[in-house]
């Protein structure tokens, strides 16, 4: 009966897990709407210059603060620039800075969380207390101080937000690594002489990556909001960018009479954050129904 052992097979249900997830993803309205919003803003960021009907940087002192009309769908600002074109162009910087900052925070946080969770002991005690101390401070204040010290540019904003996010992500990853390092496969790796680096990055890391990915999408929403806030107070993206946060800062004193100068930029920021959050929720429900 040689066939007996050879007949071993996986239940068909398991093999199609990836396909089942794809089907679930295609049925998830939350995910699809979120992706549509993200795709829209990504297109604006990539091809904004060609999509914008007018030059977003061109002043027109004859048409300042014009209300929305057929010529200017979203009206014009104090310098007579077309707000519709500026909203489209405004997606570019924030969609570069926020994802890069999130990526940096996720990579650094995952590495830190892996080390702390794997070695435990004194290292864990020290790092965890530092993380808690950092978390006790308002993040915006920490970021402001850091930016004031190193100067403001897109690169420093990425670094600072990445730095601020690192402990948050490290905490989540640490908790997951604590669970993983109690698993027997880690003991098995030690018994074949694998060193700590090999165990952390080859054995454990792939199993905590899904958690890191979810954490990253959650953080991306925060990062967008964070960048917009920093830009609003002048420490984020710098003019002459058409960034939404800057536009809101420049015009919010006019909100009583010229609402269109603020509303569309604010709505754009909100829609991007909502889009990211919808994708996060959608992904979570697909992977963890």
């Amino acid at each position: 009966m040689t066939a007996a052992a050879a007949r071993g097979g996986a239940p068909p249900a398991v093999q199609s897990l990836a396909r089942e997830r794809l089907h679930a993803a295609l049925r998830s309205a939350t995910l699809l709407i979120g992706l549509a919003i993200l795709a829209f803003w990504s297109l604006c960021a990539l091809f904004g210059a060609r999509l914008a009907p007018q030059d977003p940087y061109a002043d027109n002192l004859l048409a300042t603060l014009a209300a929305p009309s057929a010529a200017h769908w979203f009206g014009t600002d104090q310098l007579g620039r077309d707000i519709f074109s500026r909203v489209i162009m405004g997606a570019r910087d924030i969609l570069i800075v926020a994802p890069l900052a999130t990526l940096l925070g996720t990579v650094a946080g995952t590495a830190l969380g892996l080390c702390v969770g794997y070695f435990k002991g004194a290292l864990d005690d020290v790092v965890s207390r530092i993380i808690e101390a950092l978390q006790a401070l308002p993040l915006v204040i920490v970021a402001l101080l850091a930016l004031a010290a190193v100067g403001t540019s897109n690169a420093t904003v990425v670094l600072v937000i990445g730095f601020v996010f690192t402990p948050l992500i490290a905490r989540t990853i640490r908790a997951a690594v604590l669970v993983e390092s109690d698993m027997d496969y880690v003991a098995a790796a030690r018994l074949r002489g694998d060193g700590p680096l090999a165990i952390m990055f080859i054995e454990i890391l792939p199993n905590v990556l899904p958690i890191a990915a979810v954490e990253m999408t959650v953080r991306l929403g925060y990062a967008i909001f964070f960048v917009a806030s920093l830009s609003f107070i002048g420490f984020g993206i710098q003019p002459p960018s058409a960034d939404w946060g800057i536009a809101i800062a420049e015009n919010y004193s006019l909100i009583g009479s010229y609402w269109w100068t603020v509303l569309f930029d604010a709505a754009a920021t909100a829609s991007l954050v909502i889009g990211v959050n919808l994708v996060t929720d959608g992904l979570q429900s697909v992977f963890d129904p």
Partner: protein
Amino acid sequence: MNSGGAVPRHAEAQDTAALCIEHLDVLYRVGRRERRVLTDLNLTIRRGESYGLVGESGCGKSTAAFAAIRYLARNGVVSAGRILVDGRDLMALSPPELRRLRSESVSMVYQDPGRALNPTLRIGRQMAEVFEVAEGLRGGAALERAAEMLARVQIPSPQRILRNYPHELSGGMQQRVVIAMALSTNPALLILDEPTTGLDATVEAEVLDLISRLHAEFSNSILFISHSLPVVARMCDRVGVLYAGELVEEGPAASVFGDPRHPYTVGLMRCVPAYGRRKNQGRLESIPGFLPTPGSITGRCVFVDRCGNATERCRGEAPPLIDLGGRVTRCFYPERAQELPLQRESAAAALSEPPAAAPPSSPQPSSSTHLSSSPQPLLRARNLCKTYHVAGKALQAVHAVTLELWPGETLGLVGESGSGKSSLAKLLLGLSTPDAGSQLELAGEPLPPRAGERTRAQLKALQIVFQNPGSALNRSQTVRRLIGRSLRLVGLVGRAREVRLRELAASVRLTLRHLDEKPRQLSGGLQQRVAIARAFAGGPRVVVCDEPTSALDVSVQSAILNLLVDLQAELEVSYIFISHDLNVVHYLSDRIAVLYLGRLVEIGPSEAVFSGPHHPYTAALLSANPAAGAGAAGRIRLTGELPSALKLPTGCVFHTRCPRKLGSICELEEPPLHAAGDGHGIRCHIPAAELAAPV
């Protein structure tokens, strides 16, 4: 005390069964697909009867139980059939009626009592609630009834237990509380879903005794669900064998187990190592193939793919339940069931025929052979101690264990949870550091205590097969990678590594196709084969098997045990085999060590440990074995709780539960390990000769 429960029910109700399931089909909706888990299930439990439902995991036992109280998971649907509980049609009941039925007529006891009890409420509060809801009692009166119920399940001081939280009780105690709650309303039907699976052998024996006695006292009907044939055989009047969602055989317990008429029942019974059977008396039987996905087989017999008796007729039409007079079977050839051909394993096994050298029945085959062939033990532990520090207190997990392992032998480690079996294994492997003064030697050379300090050769020599392959195999790696990474230890790369990998896979009967799959795509048995291949990758000299089959079904268990025996015969590896299943340990082991609270209480050749004289604890363990078939009078039951390892008893640690305690000497002096014959040692103040005599 309200003795209403003991009075037989009204005579006119005798004709209505406690549970009657007719032509029941249950589906689960997964995504858009429907999976049928129960097909045309018919069963009737008469009043006062105890009915056992047996089968392996995934065959629909629990689904049947949940359907019987209409409490299926959200995606479960009863698509056909009727369920009558106490004569009432369950599907026709309105939600309030259903709630009333559940509170009055049916009770259920689950496998894990820790999850059945609310951790934030005291036992008293949880139990009183039953009486408040069912009988409208209030406050003190309800608590009083709760205390009465606890007394009836033989809980020593009910008033104290009522004030406890669930986590303050042991598993056995928790399960008694759950059983007491279930019986509080004196239900017509009591459903027990694997009630003792999570418990230790001696505790299981006690709980089973309790259930039997309560059954006699309350005369409820019982639906007893279990994967364990010996347990069901002991507990039930009638049994049903479930396979892939169909009842394949049903009848009185004695006739189903004594004279099975379905090949699946025959196969299941052959898989379990019989009481007292040894590895040199031949291989264990296994059932080839895998349980089919429920509902995937239509128009033919569900068991046809794994059946040695199958004919064209079995492939072309589904057999109906055939009445054999008082019992039924779903097989065209019931008279041939017991002629089921013996299962020969695959070609790979043929490469290394079972040890031809093993003499059929020489009394002590191995314990004498290895002594002559090898002058020194392979692994030696002296005075091995491990103390953990928990909140400033010392917890002795392992205390002064001295043992030797000879080349090619299997040392069985037996003991209940908390006895230090796994802690001892970890110490030997270097996964935890022993206390100062402990000594380890490998082939005469001192062995560093930590895995990180050991040389490659030493690491290679000592490997482990863990209990739970789900945790032992990295879920993100393919089988090829899982085994391949261990081959690096022997310095194999490239082509040579691939060749060796294929050899290894073949030696554990994995096919090439499996190499590219990930653990979750494999069944539990296949996963454990991967874990075994990994342990053997470096050519180990000692493999610790930590309950390697306890997470597996019986039909798979025997195949894994056979594999371990084959590999040992072929490679002359030594095993330290940890298990709570005495029949399995007995089957596999040349010598057996019994642990209690981290101390070695008995060690010796397998036959001597089983035949006696026994340490009183070993005697209780052996007597708890449901397959041992000891009459109720001959059973030794331990009383009292396992002491906390944080507050060990003085003197002999077993004196608090020992049925043969001598007196103050046991409380004051730790007994020495007395010699009781050839290599047999017993740690007891009672001399071996006296221990051999019955109590």
